[in-house]
């Protein structure tokens, strides 16, 4: 028997979409968090409503974790497909919890296993001289030392139905997710009380459902405890007192929470994965509490007919002075390109939360990629200023969201806040958000104008040419401050002009705002250097977690690596990044895309080409191990210039 590992493991639950995989994973994550542990979880799912395979990976530790790993220590399942999809990833000494009723299911009997996956699974099993049933897959795992935990879910449900005096068994079958979860908790000897509290919490909106699930969970927990009493399973989860001020938060909540704090009071959107959750969270919480006041605030959230309307409405709203945003993903952002330029030339502060997913076209609509960096920086015809800021994780995205509204107001331009599927569909424990940490800066927005804002004719000049490229901005409805906007080049008042001299002045005015922004934006919002070494990883966005965790693992081997996390993509902080690269002998570009888009930005602005490239574009976020292995290979001196990562089911 291996030694026991307590409070450090990777747990996965899988099942058909719509069968409660998410709920079970949320309960697990919350139970661990309530048990004083740190979690990082991520959700993988198909573009499908019901039936396709989805799974949720949660890494648990007694220390902060920021990424997932390839390995699975505990696989909780209640269908055949989850076994077929993941049996190879379960580690020796790890566990597979499975339903006895699916043991004889043939691979060919699972229609949602597509041909490509089926061929891979078949190859593995045949190579091992095994048949093609779940039992064979389990046998394969068992040979490698995986411990199998068979649960007769149906029989347990029948027993439970009798005990609960509820003959509606069909209703109860919906609880197999919680039963699989509960079994995993039992074999890991996790506190059943903490688990029960987590179940109550997740189903808090439906008291009856919550109670039923708690009882079902307890029923299975007791059963599994008794049945596997002698298993002496190697992985344990032990609840401990919680640290102060910790929260467990999902990536599709953090930016929406930031918007509330930032004072965003208008959001227009068109449904798209993985951005819709942001808008829906705002709408679900449209009435806002205000400090020290009986009054309430509110957010108007509008579902539009398309993304063109979404950004157009947000711009229209922004013109009235309301902090306004839209949230979208690549396909929607493609439609927004023209209006983005309109906001640019008219100097309108509007925020676009760009939750990237794998493109092009529909791409992998529910999968992850960082493929839209070039596009965000360049979207729209002609030249106009915009700010592009990329957040690296859930916690950052909360504070960055407040900052992007400040930047939009201060520099009177559209701001694209880069997020992605990996952030949106992950869950993490972190320090409680501090809403007061970032102030509200509305820049040169004024409620009334002064004489110096007027031209010779006494008209207010919305686009006044002066030493300061930023003009005082009034909002629609301001007395004595009428102005015009047009998508055409314009005069200081905002009327159409094709004058060549004025054109140059207006272009200069707008573009000069970028230089000013570059001067004023604090370094920590431009790029962050983690650690120091002459080997430097340059990366951005949600790869941050895997890179940080890999750095720590490398440090454990005695290898120090520096990590330059670039946040501001436009205007690009060339000087800062250059200074961070000073003394770096080996530069490694790590990104979730094919071409290495940040690498090309660095080359363009800093004149330095990455020595190595680690890229990934299979739609699955980078894991700790693959980043670690790829960097290790570079350090070992036998890596090709470009390594393509491929992990993930």
């Amino acid at each position, binding site marked *: 028997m291996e030694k026991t590992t307590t409070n450090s493991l990777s747990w996965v639950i899988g099942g058909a979409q719509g069968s409660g995989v998410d709920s079970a994973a949320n309960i697990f994550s919350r139970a661990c968090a309530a048990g004083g542990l740190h979690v990082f979880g991520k959700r993988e799912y198909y573009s499908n409503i019901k039936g396709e395979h989805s799974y949720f990976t949660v890494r648990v530790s007694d220390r902060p974790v920021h990424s997932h790993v390839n390995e699975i220590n505990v696989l909780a399942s209640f269908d055949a497909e989850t076994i077929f999809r993941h049996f190879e990833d379960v580690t020796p000494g790890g566990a597979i919890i499975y339903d006895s009723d699916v043991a004889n299911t043939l691979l060919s009997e699972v229609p949602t296993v597509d041909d490509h996956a089926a061929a891979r699974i078949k190859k593995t099993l045949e190579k091992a001289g095994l048949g093609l049933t779940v039992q064979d897959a389990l046998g394969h795992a068992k040979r490698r030392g995986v411990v199998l935990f068979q649960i007769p879910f149906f029989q347990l449900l029948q027993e439970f139905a009798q005990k609960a005096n509820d003959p509606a068994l069909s209703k109860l079958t919906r609880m197999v997710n919680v039963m699989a979860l509960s079994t995993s908790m039992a074999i890991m000897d996790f506190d059943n009380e903490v688990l029960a509290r987590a179940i109550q919490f997740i189903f808090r909106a439906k008291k009856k459902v919550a109670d039923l699930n708690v009882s079902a969970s307890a029923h299975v927990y007791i059963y599994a405890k008794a049945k596997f009493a002698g298993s002496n399973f190697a992985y344990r989860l032990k609840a401990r007192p919680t640290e102060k001020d910790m929260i467990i938060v999902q990536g599709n909540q953090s930016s929406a929470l930031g918007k509330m704090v930032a004072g965003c009071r208008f959001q227009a959107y068109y449904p798209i994965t993985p951005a819709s959750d942001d808008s829906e969270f705002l709408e679900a919480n449209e009435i806002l509490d205000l*400090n020290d006041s009986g009054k309430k605030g509110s957010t108007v959230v509008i579902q539009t007919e398309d993304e063109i309307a979404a950004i157009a409405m947000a711009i*229209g709203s922004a013109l009235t002075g309301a902090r306004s945003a839209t949230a979208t993903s690549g396909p929607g952002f493609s439609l927004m390109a023209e209006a983005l330029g309109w906001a640019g030339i008219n100097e309108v502060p509007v925020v676009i939360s760009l939750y990237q997913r794998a493109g092009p076209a529909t791409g992998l609509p529910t999968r992850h990629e960082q493929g839209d960096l070039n596009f965000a920086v360049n979207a729209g015809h002609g030249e106009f200023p915009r700010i592009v800021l990329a957040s690296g994780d859930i916690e950052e995205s909360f504070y960055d969201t407040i900052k992007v509204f400040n930047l939009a107001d201060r520099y009177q331009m559209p701001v694209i806040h880069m997020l992605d599927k990996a952030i949106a569909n992950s869950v993490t424990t972190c320090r409680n958000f501090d809403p007061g940490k970032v*102030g509200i800066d509305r820049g040169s927005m004024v409620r009334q104008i002064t004489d110096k804002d007027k031209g010779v004719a006494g008209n207010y000049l919305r686009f006044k040419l002066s030493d300061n490229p930023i003009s005082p901005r009034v909002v629609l409805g301001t007395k004595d401050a009428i102005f015009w906007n047009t998508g055409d080049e314009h005069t200081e008042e905002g009327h159409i002009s094709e004058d060549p001299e004025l054109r140059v002045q207006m272009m200069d005015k707008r573009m000069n705002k970028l230089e000013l922004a570059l001067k004023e934006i604090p370094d920590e919002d431009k790029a962050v250097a983690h650690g120091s070494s002459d080997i430097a990883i340059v990366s951005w966005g949600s790869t941050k977690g895997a890179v940080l965790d890999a750095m720590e693992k490398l440090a454990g081997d005695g290898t120090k690596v520096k990590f330059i996390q670039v946040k501001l993509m436009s205007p690009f902080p060339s000087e800062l990044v250059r200074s961070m690269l000073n003394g770096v002998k080996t530069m490694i570009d790590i990104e979730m895309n094919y071409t290495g888009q940040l690498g090309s930005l660095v080359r363009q602005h800093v004149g330095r080409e990455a020595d190595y490239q680690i890229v990934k574009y299979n739609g699955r976020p980078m894991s700790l191990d693959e980043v670690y292995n790829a960097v290790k290979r570079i350090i070992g001196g036998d890596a090709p210039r470009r390594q393509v990562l491929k992990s993930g089911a």
Partner: protein
Amino acid sequence: MALKLSDYKTDVHNDWCPGCGDFGILNAIQMALADMQVPPYKATIFSGIGCSGKTPHFIKTYGIHTLHGRVLPFAQGAKLANPDLEMIAVGGDGDGLGIGAGHFVSAGRRNVDMVYIIFNNAVYGLTKGQASPTLKLGMKTKSLPQPNVNNSVNPIALALVAGFTFLARGYSYDVRHLKDLIMKAVAHKGLAFIDVLQPCPTYNDINTKEWFQGLDNVDPETHKAMPRMYKLEETGYDGVVHDPSEINQKMAQVIEKSNEWGGKIPIGIFYQNEHVPTYQERIAARIPDYMENAPAVQQIADNKGKTITSIDRLLSDLRVDK
């Protein structure tokens, strides 16, 4: 001091072609604003792209000249963020019914309390006379290389089924009548649409001013031209839905009347239904103080620049020790 018509005029040079129907519409809008004594800073004219898109630059209110086809979403966004302001959206027939048709239909579903005026001359003027969505099938205006191969859309009927709650048609050279329509549209509770027929003297050589006046259509007895336009209100037509039970009948007569074309063309109010809640009312049903505390007027920070929004309730739900 009463506001005069001249208070709504800018000194921007107007570069529309001589005889352009746009002038009549511009005048009617300015006259309506003056008649209603709307303070210029309280109104915003939104426009799309094309000759009509230049309209806001000639009117001394806030003026937002947007993108091709997108005038309605821009205007709706502004109106919903600040329902206290008067928003009038204007645009061409290609702008609103071609590239912007999706927004047109969706706007009907919302019924935002504002006005949309289409300058309808059946051609794309500024790009040199291509066929617009309202040009009839088989028509060959002078700059078309071939006769129009598309059928035309019926703007009034489309607006009706989309859910607009005020439908009218005006004629750009009957400025007073059009001014009255605009005033009624502004007073209407809900989304009002005015389809304004206008000649394009440069590119539409079929539906000309003379054609509208009926110079080709002489009464054999009186030897006088018989104008094609006639006013619905002078025929006893009543488009107002006085009671919701009348909706089907009132809608049916809109389809019939709006299909009239050729010899006789009706103008006036086709339909008005104030029994449909406006989008503002729908928001206010969920956000009780929305009308007084709309997004544009909400305070979001204290005087030290600190947020005043509290998310404690939501954060407490996320606490691990919850």
